[in-house]
């Protein structure tokens, strides 16, 4: 009995050790977003609350929680409250299988990648239920666009993941990273380059970020599916969206950029030093690089038109991924594993 309680407590500690840094990361990502985009537009960005504006996210959170949660009169109340929860819960639970270093993972399950794909698919329910339950035209239109866009890019992303599986021969994320050992030339982004690009662009589209943010195109349908949400309910959507952005970036680092492996692993002269050693620091640096790309895209690209988005997803990405899966599969079958360690 005591042992079971100990084990349970240990699991809870691990879960908090993932959730709390994740929520802090979301908070500071919002600050980074405003500062980076500010700098790109030759503005300063928020810098008043605390040194360099570091306390700005906390001020934002307190303000959001102090606001009234409005339940529109015509809405379906139960679904209206359920929708933000359905967005946040999968966005958090998907982190259960993410390894941060060898052995540093909450649930070491062999179907890790399938689990991540399944949970990121559940997120679309939150969007579509929110749009329906709000009983507002903007919310409804936004939810329709957003859901169609998310499921379209889900396919391209799924095919890209299959490419990784073919190369790695495993669904377990730890084994996928360990299959890339032996220096930067063994990382999967080289043999899987088209899939890598497609994965990341699909990730941007999947999280409804610029330049694929027609779902919330503020100049036409205000805020899309969450236009009727305020206060804490809106905060849940926001938290879910940003947690998903970080997840997409981290997965890109794990699957294509060697995860926690050092890029300097095979450089002569520094073997055995900390620069060549695998470390969580490398993983976080790579994740931050991808997150920076998200912000950079938002500051520089004009918004895509909806028909262009659907054309890119269905008519460009899906054919490329199918062809490249067969190419990689041929490499594996013929044992031309020039990327393997």
């Amino acid at each position, binding site marked *: 009995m005591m042992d079971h309680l100990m084990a349970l407590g240990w*699991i*809870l500690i691990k*879960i908090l050790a993932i*959730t709390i840094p994740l929520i802090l990361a979301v908070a500071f990502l919002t600050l980074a977003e405003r500062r980076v985009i500010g700098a790109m537009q030759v503005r300063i960005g928020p810098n008043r609350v605390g040194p360099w504006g570091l306390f700005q996210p906390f001020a934002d959170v307190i303000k959001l*929680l*102090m*606001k*009234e*949660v*409005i339940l529109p*009169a*015509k809405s379906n109340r139960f679904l209206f409250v359920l929708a*933000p*929860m359905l967005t*946040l*819960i999968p966005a*958090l*639970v998907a982190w*259960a299988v993410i390894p941060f270093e060898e052995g540093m993972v*909450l*649930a070491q*399950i062999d179907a890790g990648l399938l689990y991540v794909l399944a949970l990121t*698919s559940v997120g679309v329910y939150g969007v579509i239920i929110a749009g329906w339950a709000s*009983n*507002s*035209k903007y*919310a*409804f239109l936004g939810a*329709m666009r957003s*859901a*169609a866009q998310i*499921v*379209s890019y*889900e*396919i391209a992303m*799924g*095919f890209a*993941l*299959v490419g990784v*599986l073919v190369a790695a*021969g495993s*669904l377990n994320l730890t084994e996928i990273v360990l299959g890339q050992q032996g220096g930067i030339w063994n990382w999967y982004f080289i043999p899987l380059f088209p899939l890598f690009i497609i994965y990341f662009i699909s990730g941007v589209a999947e999280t409804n970020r610029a330049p694929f943010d027609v779902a919330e195109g503020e100049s036409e349908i*205000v805020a899309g599916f969450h236009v009727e949400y305020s206060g*804490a309910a809106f*905060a*849940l959507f926001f938290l879910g969206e940003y947690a998903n952005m970080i997840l997409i970036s981290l997965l890109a680092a794990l699957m294509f950029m060697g995860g926690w492996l050092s890029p300097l692993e095979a450089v002569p002269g520094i073997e055995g030093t900390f620069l060549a050693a695998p470390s969580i620091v490398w993983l976080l640096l790579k994740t931050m690089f991808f997150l920076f790309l998200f912000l950079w895209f938002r500051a520089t690209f004009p918004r895509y038109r*909806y*028909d262009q988005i*659907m*054309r890119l997803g*269905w*008519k460009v990405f*899906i*054919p490329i991924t*199918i062809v490249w899966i*067969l190419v990689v*599969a*041929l490499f*594996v*079958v013929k044992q031309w594993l020039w990327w393997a360690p």
Partner: protein
Amino acid sequence: MLAEYFPVLIFLGVATGLSIVLLLVGAILGPNKSSDDKMAPYECGFEAFEDARMKFDVRYYLVAILFIIFDLEIAFLFPWAVVLDKTGMVGLIAMTIFLTILVIGFIYEWKKGALEWE
């Protein structure tokens, strides 16, 4: 085997609890002054003049159906990809045939205009 999934179940509980707590904190800390105009659906200042649950474009429905087909396809590819180094050329040829059938269907829907969004 299933024991490895136990932390996932706990995480599910923690995440559900967290989202309920956040909503409750918002409901307790926030004001609660209801008025007809505030509770009305937002329509840029206009009064909402018809129900929002209107007809929508059938293409959204079409995308959802196509998604189910392709997503099942991906689910088929997952186990194939994991054991490819054991099944070898036979596995590759079998999957090529399977993907060819899929691609024929894909070309058909493309030519039919199911993917057009003017």
